[in-house]
C-alpha cells in the first residue's frame, strides 16, 4: 500500500477518544459549528470512564461551606507539589461551572432534600486548607462515570457530532514544521487505512494501565495516544508516576473497594499475622493507600507472601457476620467468587497492590494545548483526560479529581480549538509527501514478518517486567535491571508475528498494534523512574528514605521538576514546576503529611 491508495477525509477537527474527555471536547466543537469527527475503538458509552464510581469533585458548598481555593490547596498537596499551580487553580475554579453544566446536560446527580446536588467526603479533600474532611464529591449513586458518559453522549447526538466507532487511530500526521495535521486510522470492519485530515487534533485516548500485570484498568487502556505522540516526536511528561490501589484481586486485578476494610476487613500475611499493626499502629488496615500498598509489598518481598509463589497477601473478612457481608458487601462477595474462586464468608481473598491511574502523559497547558519541551504549543495538537498531563495530578492524584479533569480540560481544549481555528492560527495545510509512510511500513512489517515473536507472550513479558521492576515500591538495582529488560522486550515487539493476515476484523493485528503503544509507555515509565533519585508521591524508592533533610525521601533541591522522556534515543530532560497560580499566591513547598 502506498500513500496514494489511502483515502483522505477532511474535517475541521478530529478527536481521538470518546470517553468523558473526548465527548466533553466534542460538545464544544460541534456546538461551536466545527465539522468534527470522533474516533473510538469502541462504542462511546463503552469507554472506560464508565468504571468510575466514586464521583466528581467541585466546591459547590451544597452540604457545608467550601471554596475552590481549599480544593486547590488539597490538589497541590496531594500532588506532592509536582502539580502546576496555574492549571490546578484553573481546574478548581472551573469545577462548579462544569459540574452544573453537566447537570444541565441531564446528569442524574444524587440530591439533597432541598434538591441540590448531594455531596460526600472523599480521601484528601479538606476544608480550610487541610483542616478537616469536607463534602466535595458529587455522584450519581455508584454509577457516576456511566451516567456522565451517557449525558455527554446524548448531548453530542443532539449536536450532530460524527462518530467513527470501532476505528483505531494508528499515528499522528505532522509536517516538517511540526504542525499536527490529523491522524491515520484503521477501520476494523473493513481493514481500510484512512487519513483524517484536520485543522486541529485532540487526543482523549485515556490511560495505559495495561502496562502492568496487575491492573484495575480494562483491556482497552493500552496507551495508544501516548504511543502515537511518542512516535511523532512529542515528549511524555512525568511517566514514572502511577497510582496503585492496595486491594486488587491477585491475578485478575479487579478492584476491591476500600469499603471492605472500612467494614472491618483485615490484611494478613502467610503467618496469619495482621501485619498492618506493625506499619501503622493507629490506622492499621485503614492507613492511606500508599502506606498500605508499600506494607503489602514489603511483606511479599520479605518472604511472607501467601500462595505457592508467595506473591500475594490475604484480605480477611471471615470474622464478620455473614449477614453483614451479604448486606453491606454483596458486590464484593460476587467479585471474589467470580475472580478469585473464593467465597469470602469462608476464606480470605488473595489481593495485591494494583495499578490504577496514570498521572503523567502528553504535556499540555491549562488550555489543553500540547506543549513542546520549550513550553511553546505544538500547532494543531491538543489533549485532555488521563492521556494528558496538564499537570494537575503531579506525583499523586486525589480521588474524584480525574472526572473533574475530563470535564474541565475536555472543555478548555475544545475552546482552544475554536479560538485557534477562528483566528486562523490553525488551518488545513497540505499533507506532506509520504505522510503515511511510517505507518504503512509498520503495517507491512507486521503482515510479512516470519519467525517472529508471539504478541500475547511478549505483552505478558512486558507486564510482568513492569510489575516486578517498577511497581509500587522501587529498588535501585531492580530499576536498572528493568530498563535493560524492557530494551530487550522492545526488540521482541519490533518483530511480532501474526498468523491471520486478513483485512476484515483482524483482531490479532489490532492487538499487535496496541502492543506497539504499550512498549512506548512501559519504556518511558521505567527510564523516567530509574532516573528520578528521590521519593515523591506515588514514586517511592528504597534508596530515598525518610530523613530529616528529605522528609518522606522527597528531595526538592534536586528533583522538584517535571520529567520529559523523548522516544528518540530514550533521552530525558526536565522542566520546572509552575509554582505561580493565575490569581492567588503560590502554595509554598511543604512536607506532605496527613
Amino acid at each position, binding site marked *: 500500500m502506498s500513500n496514494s491508495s489511502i483515502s483522505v477525509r477532511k474535517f475541521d477537527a478530529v478527536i481521538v477518544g470518546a470517553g468523558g474527555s473526548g465527548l466533553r471536547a466534542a460538545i464544544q466543537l460541534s456546538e461551536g459549528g466545527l465539522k468534527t469527527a470522533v474516533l473510538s475503538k469502541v462504542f462511546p458509552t463503552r469507554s472506560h470512564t464508565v468504571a468510575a464510581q466514586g464521583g466528581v469533585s467541585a466546591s459547590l458548598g451544597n452540604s457545608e461551606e467550601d471554596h475552590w481555593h481549599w480544593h486547590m490547596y488539597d490538589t497541590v498537596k496531594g500532588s506532592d507539589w509536582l502539580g502546576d499551580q496555574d492549571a490546578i487553580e484553573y481546574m478548581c475554579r472551573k469545577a462548579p461551572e462544569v459540574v452544573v453544566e453537566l447537570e444541565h446536560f441531564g446528569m442524574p446527580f444524587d440530591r439533597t432534600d432541598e434538591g441540590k446536588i448531594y455531596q460526600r467526603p472523599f480521601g484528601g479533600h479538606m476544608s480550610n486548607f487541610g483542616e478537616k474532611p469536607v463534602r466535595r464529591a458529587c455522584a450519581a449513586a455508584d454509577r457516576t462515570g456511566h451516567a456522565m458518559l451517557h449525558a455527554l453522549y446524548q448531548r453530542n447526538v443532539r449536536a450532530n457530532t460524527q462518530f467513527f466507532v470501532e476505528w483505531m487511530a494508528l499515528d499522528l500526521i505532522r509536517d516538517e514544521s511540526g504542525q499536527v495535521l490529523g491522524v491515520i486510522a484503521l477501520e476494523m470492519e473493513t481493514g481500510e487505512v484512512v487519513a483524517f485530515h484536520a485543522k486541529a487534533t485532540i487526543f482523549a485516548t485515556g490511560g495505559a494501565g495495561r502496562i502492568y500485570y496487575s491492573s484495575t484498568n*480494562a483491556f482497552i487502556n493500552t496507551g495508544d495516544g501516548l504511543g502515537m505522540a511518542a512516535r511523532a516526536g512529542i515528549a511524555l511528561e512525568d511517566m514514572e508516576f502511577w497510582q496503585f490501589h492496595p486491594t486488587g484481586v491477585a491475578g485478575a486485578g479487579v478492584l476491591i473497594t476500600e469499603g471492605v476494610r472500612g467494614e472491618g476487613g483485615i490484611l494478613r500475611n502467610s503467618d496469619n499475622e495482621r501485619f498492618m499493626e506493625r506499619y501503622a499502629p493507629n490506622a492499621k488496615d485503614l492507613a492511606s493507600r500508599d502506606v498500605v500498598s508499600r506494607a503489602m509489598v514489603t511483606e511479599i518481598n520479605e518472604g511472607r507472601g501467601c500462595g505457592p509463589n508467595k506473591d500475594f497477601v490475604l484480605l480477611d473478612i471471615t470474622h464478620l457476620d455473614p449477614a453483614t457481608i451479604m448486606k453491606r458487601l454483596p458486590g464484593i462477595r460476587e467479585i471474589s467468587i467470580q475472580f478469585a474462586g473464593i467465597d469470602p464468608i469462608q476464606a480470605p481473598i488473595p489481593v495485591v497492590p494494583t495499578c490504577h491511574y496514570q498521572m503523567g502523559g502528553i504535556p499540555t497547558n491549562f488550555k489543553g494545548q500540547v506543549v513542546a519541551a520549550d513550553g511553546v504549543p505544538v500547532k494543531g495538537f491538543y489533549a485532555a483526560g488521563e492521556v494528558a498531563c496538564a499537570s494537575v495530578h503531579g506525583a499523586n492524584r486525589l480521588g474524584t479529581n480525574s472526572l473533574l479533569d475530563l470535564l474541565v480540560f475536555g472543555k478548555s481544549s475544545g475552546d482552544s480549538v475554536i479560538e485557534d481555528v477562528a483566528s486562523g492560527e490553525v488551518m488545513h495545510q497540505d499533507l506532506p509527501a509520504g505522510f503515511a509512510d511510517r505507518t504503512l511500513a509498520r503495517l507491512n512489517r507486521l503482515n510479512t514478518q516470519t519467525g517472529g515473536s508471539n504478541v500475547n507472550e511478549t505483552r505478558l513479558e512486558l507486564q510482568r517486567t513492569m510489575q516486578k521492576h517498577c511497581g509500587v515500591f522501587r529498588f535501585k538495582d531492580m530499576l536498572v535491571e528493568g530498563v535493560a529488560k524492557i530494551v530487550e522486550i522492545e526488540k521482541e515487539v519490533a518483530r511480532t508475528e501474526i498468523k491471520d493476515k486478513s483485512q476484515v476484523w483482524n483482531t490479532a493485528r489490532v492487538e499487535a498494534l496496541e502492543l506497539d503503544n504499550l512498549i512506548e509507555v512501559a519504556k518511558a515509565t521505567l527510564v523516567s523512574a530509574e532516573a528520578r533519585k528521590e521519593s515523591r508521591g506515588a514514586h517511592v524508592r528504597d534508596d530515598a528514605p525518610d530523613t530529616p533533610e528529605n522528609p518522606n525521601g522527597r528531595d526538592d533541591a534536586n528533583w522538584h521538576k517535571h520529567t520529559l522522556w523523548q522516544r528518540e534515543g530514550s533521552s530525558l530532560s526536565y522542566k520546572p514546576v509552575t509554582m505561580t497560580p493565575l490569581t492567588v499566591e503560590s502554595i509554598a513547598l511543604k512536607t506532605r503529611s496527613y
Partner: protein
Amino acid sequence: MDERERINRLRWRCTRRAMLEMDLLLGEFLERIFPTLAPAQAEAFIVLADMEDLELWPLINGSRECADPVQAEVVALLRDVRVK
C-alpha cells in the same frame, strides 16, 4: 460476514468493554463455553455481549431477572465462569 469475521468481531466486543470484570468474564466465556453452545444460545450470548456493562452485570449477579428463558440459560453459564 464469514465465521472468522463474526467471531473476531464478537471477541473485540467481549474483550474491549468498559469494565475489567466484563473483559475477563466474557473473554473467558468466549474461549471456553461459547464453542459448546447450541445455536439459539449462541444468538442469546451475542445479544448479551451487545449490552452495556451496567445492564449486563445485574443479570449476572442476579439482581435482575432475564426476560427470556434461553437468555437465562446463558446467563447461568456466564455466572458459573470462574476466571483463572
